[in-house]
């Protein structure tokens, strides 16, 4: 892991600071970014020591968490029910599959028209992309369940509700967690898109304003911060998943 990072940073250093390739002329160099990031009095206004930096992080994280919670709370049950009740899927899935491929950016105007508040459109866009990912994966999770497990549960005297609770939910769980990780990824993606267009605060807004005001190191700071928080939130989901599905971790480790 360390070798990979070392390589990446040296290529950056060489390309921008040492060789100064033509294409990289306007790129902020590694040294410049690090210096700005750790400066007590940053030249362009954003560093580890400014409260503004943390308020951007907080605003973005809060938006993602709200949107993600809604996507989790609505998408997972919807996907599970679509997978389990064929009749329900018959009339919901076609609609779902028509809306799903619409690129999230195409929703921006409607989102702005729909919500008059400032937070509304951004959270809505973030929610929407995460919602499709959670729903679809929960549905696939149900469909992935071995039919014999369902049959076995009926043989052992389960009602339909028992089967849903004891077979469908745990059986779909691996896919649900894959879906949640994807959802978290696309949530950050849409968040930045939304903030660039309709935001007043947040890391996506920071990237955009830093660009328009030529504060180039600040762009890179915001980008790395997004990368780091995105990784952190994904890792958190993985951790919860491993906790809830200990049987998988144990089976994998015994080979």
């Amino acid at each position, binding site marked *: 892991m360390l070798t990979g990072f070392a390589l990446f940073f040296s290529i950056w250093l060489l390309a921008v600071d040492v060789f100064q390739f033509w294409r990289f002329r306007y790129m902020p160099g590694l040294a410049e970014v690090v210096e700005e990031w750790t400066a007590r009095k940053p030249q362009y206004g954003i560093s580890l020591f400014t409260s503004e930096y943390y308020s951007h992080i907080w605003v973005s994280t809060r938006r993602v968490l709200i949107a993600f919670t809604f996507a989790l709370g609505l998408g997972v049950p919807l996907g599970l029910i679509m997978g389990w009740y064929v009749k329900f899927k018959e009339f919901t899935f076609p609609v779902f599959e028509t809306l799903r491929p619409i690129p999230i950016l195409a929703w921006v105007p409607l989102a702005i028209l729909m919500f008059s508040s400032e937070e509304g459109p951004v959270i809505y866009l973030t929610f929407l992309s995460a919602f499709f990912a959670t729903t679809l994966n929960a549905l696939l999770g149900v469909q992935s369940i071995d039919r014999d497990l369902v049959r076995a549960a009926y*043989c*052992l005297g389960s009602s339909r509700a028992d089967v849903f609770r004891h077979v469908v939910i745990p*059986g779909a769980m691996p896919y649900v967690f894959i879906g949640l990780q994807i959802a978290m990824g696309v949530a950050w993606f849409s968040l930045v898109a939304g903030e660039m267009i309709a935001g007043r605060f947040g890391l996506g807004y920071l990237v955009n304003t830093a660009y328009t005001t030529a504060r180039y190191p600040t762009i890179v700071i915001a980008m790395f911060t997004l990368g780091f928080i995105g990784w952190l939130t994904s890792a958190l989901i993985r951790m919860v998943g491993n906790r809830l599905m200990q*049987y998988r971790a144990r*089976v994998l480790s015994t080979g």
Partner: protein
Amino acid sequence: MNQAQAKQARGGISIRNVSKIYDPEKTAVAAVLDCSIEIAPGELHVICGPSGCGKTTLLNAIAGFHSITSGEIYLDGELLCGPGKPQATPGADRVVVFQNGALFPWKTVLDNITYGPVIQGRMKKEEARDVARDKMVMAGLSGLENSYPGELSSGMARRVEIVRALVNDPAVLLLDEPFRGMDDLTKSIMHESLLEIYDQTQVTFFVITHDVEEAVFLGSKVSVMTTRPGRIKESITVDISRPRDYRVLTTDGFRGLMGEVVDAVHDEAQKAFEAGEREIA
């Protein structure tokens, strides 16, 4: 003794003129045609036949996973499926042990075994655990209570599944090629272990296999099924006393019975093979 006799009287299956026609694209394919079998309570009945002859179709009809097209199936005199009720309702009186295993991978061995009695509301969790532990000792599974199915060998997993079925006190255990894909050594150990369990329970066992030696070694009666459309070609009573162990495999009596079954199955396998050739040509 009375209680034992009462128990003995459970688990009689009567399959009368059952047919199953698959008709997905109006090309009626008869998987089972006019098939009749009488299985006495407490019998270990083996259905033996070439692959694709409708053995599993029959088992699925008894378990309630499939409907039948005509005929009737009775369990202890009660109609499971027949005219007016094409599909039986699955229930804990007829528990299936699946070909590829169907333990819940997310539940521990103990929770898998206690699932049935608890979900039916027949036992409290603690009580079910005590019963499960006893049965696990009987089947040589003690110490595995907190393992997950994925951590078990295929032989162990199959034994757990048999125990999970038996704690429900079923009338019939339906085993669909339970030892398929196991190596010969594991298989022979599993055969003895199954017989040991059978000798202790008096539940009716309905076993499907295409392995003739397995059929004769396990069975009280072996019904040979014809190639598709499946019906019973011959029922052979296996007159070898229990308990049996691997030594009977080399006796003349065993060899003679095996010869009989092989003769019956071989013809059918030949026909199935030729039918396959024709389909390709």
